[in-house]
């Protein structure tokens, strides 16, 4: 099937070359970082994880959300999703690849990365995160690829594929649960030390991932002759709506616990994020922007007329993505480190090379996504014709 990725219109090649240019720029910045060390980033001893780990967290969610199309199809036999399960799986693949790269570029000593395997440490959550993410990648590659080849040959996928698809369902939940455990088990980091962290992660994943998938479906429909389907998009929009409501609800639960109990450590990070703490308020406008987009998305998703209209739905999905990205891709990590163990506030902001490396990895993810989607769509077009 790979050959289908080698035949495309000019716009396809143009897009890939554009992404390649970004990848190259990111790679250049990474070589600079590799040489100089992580001091070229905005991180420091107080905010010791930053933009990279935040993107990892966000993208694990996107990867996990693939299950939102796989589960209804395989467990509830919801046939309509059969048309787009492969899109969900391929989205998961590209997201996991990005996750791996974001961990890699965050390492101070990337050449020693194999130490994680050479000295397996089952007490470390990072060890388990490595295992669940890699397994999830393999599961999706195997299931997605084989289901698509079966479709191309006009036969039903085999038993092994089906079994692995079933396994991939709880596995998707596990990857984001384990990722939440990276944070939720650390003593002395109040913003992270919360039992609802995994639930929050899953809810934000299951709104942001399907929201991205809806946008991708709309793009696929526009640029190819394959239509992911009206019903499919409508069902997805329901999932996004419920998950976003849960996501905001869980966040409000955190606010209640912090501000009704009035325990300073529990309130500090929220104050830092939404009002500024000790004169540091760099994230305040961002967090309120996220709040604004969350409200817009909730209105557009809850009102049936705007949810069913694909134009307003697209706006709602974009709003969900912006709100959840700011929450997880900025607020969660920086907030978790603020204030520091000495109750002091240190500012963090990613530097230009740090942002460029991040963009480079996103570009690589989209490159993989484009190629995989091209293959999937070519097969679908072929089958219809």
């Amino acid at each position, binding site marked *: 099937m790979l050959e289908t990725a080698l035949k495309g219109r000019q716009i396809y090649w143009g897009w890939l070359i554009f992404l390649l240019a970004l990848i190259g720029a990111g790679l250049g910045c990474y070589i600079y970082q590799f040489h100089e060390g992580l001091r070229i980033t905005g991180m420091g001893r107080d905010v010791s994880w930053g933009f990279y780990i935040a993107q990892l967290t966000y993208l694990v969610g996107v990867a996990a959300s693939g299950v939102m199309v796989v589960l209804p199809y395989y467990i509830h036999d919801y046939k309509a999703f059969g048309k787009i399960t492969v899109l969900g799986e391929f989205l998961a693949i590209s997201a996991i690849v990005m996750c791996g790269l974001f961990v890699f570029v965050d390492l101070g000593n990337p050449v020693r990365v194999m130490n994680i395997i050479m000295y397996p440490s089952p007490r470390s959550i990072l060890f388990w995160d490595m295992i669940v993410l890699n397994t999830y990648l393999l599961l999706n590659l195997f299931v997605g690829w084989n289901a698509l080849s079966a479709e191309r040959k006009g036969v039903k996928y085999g038993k092994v594929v089906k079994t692995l698809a079933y396994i991939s369902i709880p596995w998707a939940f596990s990857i984001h649960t384990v990722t939440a455990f990276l944070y939720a088990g650390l003593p002395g*980091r109040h913003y992270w030390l919360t039992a609802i962290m995994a639930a929050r992660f899953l809810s934000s994943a299951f709104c942001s991932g399907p929201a991205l998938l809806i946008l991708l479906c709309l793009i696929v429909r526009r640029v190819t002759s394959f239509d992911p389907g009206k019903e499919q998009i409508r069902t997805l929009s329901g999932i996004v709506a419920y998950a976003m409501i849960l996501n905001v609800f869980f966040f409000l639960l955190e606010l209640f616990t912090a501000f009704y109990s009035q325990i300073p450590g529990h309130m500090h990070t929220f104050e830092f994020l939404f009002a500024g703490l000790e004169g540091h308020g760099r994230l305040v406008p961002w967090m309120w922007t996220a709040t604004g987009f969350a409200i817009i998305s909730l209105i557009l998703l809850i009102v049936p007329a705007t949810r069913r209209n694909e134009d307003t739905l697209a706006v709602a999905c974009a709003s969900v993505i912006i709100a959840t990205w700011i929450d997880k891709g900025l607020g969660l990590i920086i907030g978790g480190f603020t204030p520091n163990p000495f109750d002091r506030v240190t500012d963090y902001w990613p530097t230009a090379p740090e942002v460029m490396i991040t963009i480079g990895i996103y570009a690589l993810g989209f490159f993989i996504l484009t190629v995989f989607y091209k293959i999937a769509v070519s097969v679908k077009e072929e089958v219809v014709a």
Partner: protein
Amino acid sequence: MGLDRRNFLKIAGLSALFGLGGKAAVDIFAPGELEASMEAVPLTEGKRWAMVIDIQKMDEELMNKVTKACHREHNVPDLGNPKEEIKWIWKEDYEHSFPGQQHHYIGDDFKQGSFLLLCNHCSNPPCCRVCPTQATWQREDGIVMMDQHRCIGCRFCMAACPFGARSFNWGDPRRVLRKEDLKKLNPDYPTNRDYPTRSKGVVEKCTFCAERLAKGQIPACVEAANKVKENALTFGDLADPDSDVRAVLRKHYSIRRKPELGTEPNVFYIV
């Protein structure tokens, strides 16, 4: 020399554990010195090393002296930038040493006074729990140790440590210290040729001077403090009921940083 096979293996293993090699290892094996240290000071036999810091006996000058002794012993550079700062032992005010404990009516002595902070060598260390490569681990004598040759620089331990006791080499200290402005701050870096300098991208921290303990010496900070004032810093084995630290802790009321987190710090403060 009275070095039998068993002891030889023990010391060889220990020095490998500390990541000691070259001159440092030779020093340990220097005949005579080794035997003397093994017999005279049984420091290598501790079960739970701990430190008691008597704040009453401390002043700013002494704290600076202690810090300098440690940082020179371990080639801890001054990088001139708080974000990249490497800290093994350092000064901090009361409010930020014991966040949440302060109140408005505390005396000026406390408010303005400083505390000496270092790695707590917790009995239940979260940093070791989270390390994905066992580059940091707890030794049998309680010391929370660090292997800079295995560390991949993921900084999970820094996120897990509730005491801010871990520092990361954001750049290559050997290289950045060649820059003019930093050269001025560290004219004689590396200050101790017998102790390794670090490479970029690894985490480091106080090791309770494991390399000195192996030679039968007390930690550099304790040595420096005791030169000025007896028992300002007390170091010893908590597992031994007759040790100095146990005696001091029996006699005085002491506090620890963030005991509610259950990490069981082994650095105590007499206030």
